[in-house]
């Protein structure tokens, strides 16, 4: 990817669901390399849809999504798999394998993408230490708090050195303190050069961060703070 080229680019993207509700309407925006971008808006506004389109779990009904140069138009399943190896994805519900330790959950992401076995232990240890779980590597998810489980999920997302971390309400299931800690971790990750796109309901967090945000409402992009300051509005 050449510098200056956006890592994610939505061009007049419409996503219509068969059931008729939700989706996106002609959304256009771009995210730059190393950027931290919030996606805000009420439930059903289309935040998760944007993230799903980024990792091509969904494909646009009209318009185009380009991620790291790969266009969603005509992308093959293999190309999508390869793209996902360069992305980190984090969910509100963590999506960990409950019967495997924190270590095994992270190693799993390396194993299934064909990383050489001997390189795995060092990389897993390093990333778990980076998210502050060096002492809990052998814990099962149900032995960890919500915040710690989300850290395991973030470690799993980071272990393949992604160029962008896609986080769908990563603090949605956490208490205030754990939320702030996870957000700080995401900021640290961003500071080291990885772009972050984070969907959130937490407008206070967005405002206090001073970072770029785009707001969605009923599938339409209604505000982009890179073009104007964030307005005072209630959700």
């Amino acid at each position: 990817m050449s510098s200056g080229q956006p890592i994610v680019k939505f061009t007049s993207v419409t996503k219509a669901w068969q059931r008729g509700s939700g989706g996106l309407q002609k959304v256009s925006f771009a995210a730059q390399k190393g950027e931290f971008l919030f996606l805000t808006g009420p439930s059903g506004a289309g935040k998760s849809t944007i993230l799903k389109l980024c990792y091509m779990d969904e494909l646009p009904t009209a318009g185009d999504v380009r991620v790291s140069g790969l266009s969603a138009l005509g992308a093959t399943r293999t190309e999508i798999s390869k793209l996902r190896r360069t992305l980190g994805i984090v969910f509100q519900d963590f999506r960990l394998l409950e019967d495997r330790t924190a270590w095994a959950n992270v190693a799993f992401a390396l194993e299934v993408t064909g990383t050489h076995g001997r390189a795995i232990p060092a990389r897993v240890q390093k990333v778990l230490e980076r998210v502050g779980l060096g002492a809990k590597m052998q814990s099962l998810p149900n032995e960890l708090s919500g915040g710690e489980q989300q850290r395991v999920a973030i470690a799993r997302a980071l272990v393949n050195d992604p160029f962008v971390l896609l986080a769908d309400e990563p603090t949605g299931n956490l208490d205030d303190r754990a939320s702030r800690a996870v957000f700080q971790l995401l900021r640290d990750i961003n500071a080291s050069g990885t772009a972050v796109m984070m969907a959130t309901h937490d407008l206070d967090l967005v405002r206090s961060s001073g970072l770029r945000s785009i707001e969605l409402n009923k599938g339409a992009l209604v505000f982009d703070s890179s073009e104007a300051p964030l307005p005072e509005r209630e959700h």
Partner: protein
Amino acid sequence: MRLALREVWTAFRRAPGLGVLSVFTIAFSLFAFGLFGLVAYNTRIALERLEERVEIRAYVTEGTEAEAVAAAVGDIRAFPEVASVTYVSPDDALKKARTEMAEFQDVFEPEFLPASLEVRLRAGMRDPVQVKTVATRLGGYSFVDDVRYGEEWVQKFYTMRRAATVAGIVLGIAFALAAMIIIGSTIRTSVLARSREIGIMRLVGATDGFIRAPFLIDGLLKGFIGGGLAVGLMWMTRTALTVTVFKFEFFPPPVLLAAVLVGAVIGLLGSSLSVGRQLKRV
């Protein structure tokens, strides 16, 4: 490959009950189908043995020259349907009658029974039409007094055989379908139990082939073990029946090997279809 095998083992360790249930479902489904097959196989053997008893007897007019009969025997042997022709002299007929019906042996006098030609037909050429054709041709010889072949018996036998064949095919298809549906559902359940794992694999960038591999190995192994168990169960059942009822023939080794392979293939296909369906969703 090593990772795929490890995933198979991990999945089994996580839910051993489900794994064992899958193997036993495959085993018992194939066992039910195999039992039907065993009955059908033994019925076929019994019918073949019965069919071998189809014979035509041409009674020779008293006083016929031996040379004329010998020449005719040569002719008849050349008929395409004929497997063997045996000349039964009045003395031979008498001995046979006295042996088979010992209680009436005083009734049979020398020259009481006529000489005859005992004609047996080749396998596959013993249907009522062909039997009748040969009987008619035998009746055409001047020295033949009468031709008997149990026309009614042959007719009934072939009707019964046709009914058994049709019933065998219909029941066989029904049993095979039932087995495939049951096995398919079981495998689908075990794939569904791992849908979360499949979803995570897709999200971290595993290719479809990589995700499929452990499931295919799993299905293949379960099918193979299930097929082997089914063969074992059939052998035990056949042994028990042979001891308690009557001698049952068992399938020859190639059929047994095929049964195990069929189990493995069903397991493989079932897994492939189920995981394919699951992959379309994530």
